[in-house]
């Protein structure tokens, strides 16, 4: 069955059809969720969230060619919402704990990358992850995040510069 037919069925409330549509690009969806949520369990939760929203709203999707970008936008928004709600919870606890993960299994430069990435603003981190971790095209990112193409490009270039500054800025000449 082709995508169009599946979408038609999903629009009529066929759950299997909707799941099939997602499973046809399971890796893309999973990686996208993973880039935001950073672990398997939360990524799966975000995907579950997404499918519920898709199921409720697929009737509103007019342009069926846009199913994949539409659903991925929803996934990104679900992930961001989950992360935001989570940060609120931490604030309620009033715990400003700062800890370093002494992760033995991670390569040390990847730890470094995480650390420096986290210094960037959310919107810069986001485009860099989508562009480089997932290898998405500029216009795909623009469509997914609903921001103009020019903005995506400038965020990536600013993000890269800041990251470079940050990585190089903690110089080895300090001692």
């Amino acid at each position: 069955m082709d995508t169009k037919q599946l979408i038609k069925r999903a629009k009529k409330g066929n759950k299997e059809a909707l799941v099939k549509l997602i499973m046809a690009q399971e890796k893309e969806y999973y990686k996208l969720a993973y880039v935001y949520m950073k672990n398997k369990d939360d990524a799966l939760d975000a995907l579950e969230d997404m499918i519920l929203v898709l199921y409720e709203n697929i009737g509103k999707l007019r342009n069926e060619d846009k199913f994949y970008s539409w659903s991925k936008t929803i996934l990104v928004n679900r992930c961001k919402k989950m992360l935001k709600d989570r940060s609120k919870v931490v604030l309620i606890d009033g715990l400003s704990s700062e800890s370093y993960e002494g992760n033995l299994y991670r390569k040390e430069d990847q730890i470094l990358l995480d650390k420096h990435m986290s210094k960037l603003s959310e919107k810069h981190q986001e485009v860099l992850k989508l562009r480089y971790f997932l290898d998405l095209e500029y216009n795909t990112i623009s469509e997914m995040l609903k921001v103009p193409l020019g903005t995506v490009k400038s965020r990536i270039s600013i993000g890269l510069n800041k990251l470079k500054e940050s990585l190089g800025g903690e110089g080895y000449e300090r001692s």
Partner: protein
Amino acid sequence: MKEVENILKNRKKEMDNIEVPNDLEDRLLRALRHKKVIKKKRANWKVRVAALLIIFLLVGYNFDTLAYYGKKLIGYDTVMNGTLRELNELEKGQIIGKKYTFDNGIILTLDGIMIDENQMLAFYSLEDPSGKIDVTDMTMSQNNFKGLIETYDNSGGKGKSSEDGTEIKWISSFEPPRFFERNLSFRFNLIGEDISELGEISFKIDRDKAMGYSIKKTINKKVEIEGKNILFKSITASPTTTVIKGSIDDIISLAIDEIKGERYRANQLNFDLIANGKVIDNQGSGMSTNLKGITFHKEFDTLPTDLESLKIKFKSLSVVEDVGKKVSLKKGKDNGNIEILGETISIDDVYEKNGETFISLTTEEDTILTIVYLLADGKKVKIEETLSDDYEKKDMGSILHNRTFRFKGTGNELKLYIEKMTYTKESDKEINIPID
């Protein structure tokens, strides 16, 4: 710029290797199938987010503490009628038993509270008497107790629902009300399909029923480990939990370290609380860095009633410290040992292969070179990967950690630049807490 892009692209390889969990399809179908049951009610993502919030509260912050409540809750079983009443008979809690009925028929019951020095526990339930509404789908992210001026927020809890989901019982922990509070109002925001209603139950606090505390003591004793002063400030033992608070160094010494470039962050602090010679179960801990310096608190199970002796036995402190040291390396196996922050790092081998430089080294188990570079003829090279991570058990119980760093490129003059290091210092110092 290229280099930064390359580091980023390395992560792509990692991402490409990610395997999609086998149960993804199942989970999606299950999520949708569950939807069928509740479709009319349009239980939406809010519910899921709320569930997540609760899970996060449970798992993320208070895991150990909650495991404790969980244990107790199962022990309490139907906590609302049995044990709480029993505890109440023992004058250890206040039965409230007040209800609030929401517009959709759901009934909120505040069965009782327990107040002690460390926390206020609330026992409450949500129920749909018609047996139709799945109350576990209701968002209840916001519930708190409102006093005269202050609001006491929920800091975690655990609920147990009936099989059909039409009833859920909660035991949640809140900050204890201030001494001047006489009346409290339990405020509960119920959000679901077609409903967003604030339910309120007011009651008078019966201070006679408050459990007070068995011990609240100032400790104010210092333990010095490798130049770091760990100050144990106080211990508060209540009938529901025991909390130890303290700090590591003060803001002035932190500032001095910062100026000297010897900045460090405490990573983990391990100590036991021993009462009558027995180790008390640890329930949770937290550490934060703020204007006051580094403060910590650690929660333990309750103290025995026949308390004879009490002491803190220190185990270890693990810190991440700025090093910023360059170590000259010779190719070959005779580099010997270097000493950094009192830790011995043995450089076992330095060699080139296929245009890359490899450095093998051995440290103690808990020592990690958190950030490290190779300086090859003055050029800073980041680490490519860590190979053959091995742990070697020595006699005497110590464990050595061998590994090899791989760097791209070679050079004649090699230096290892260690920027940050994580290490653990053990200690068996003890602090006796006098009981009187």
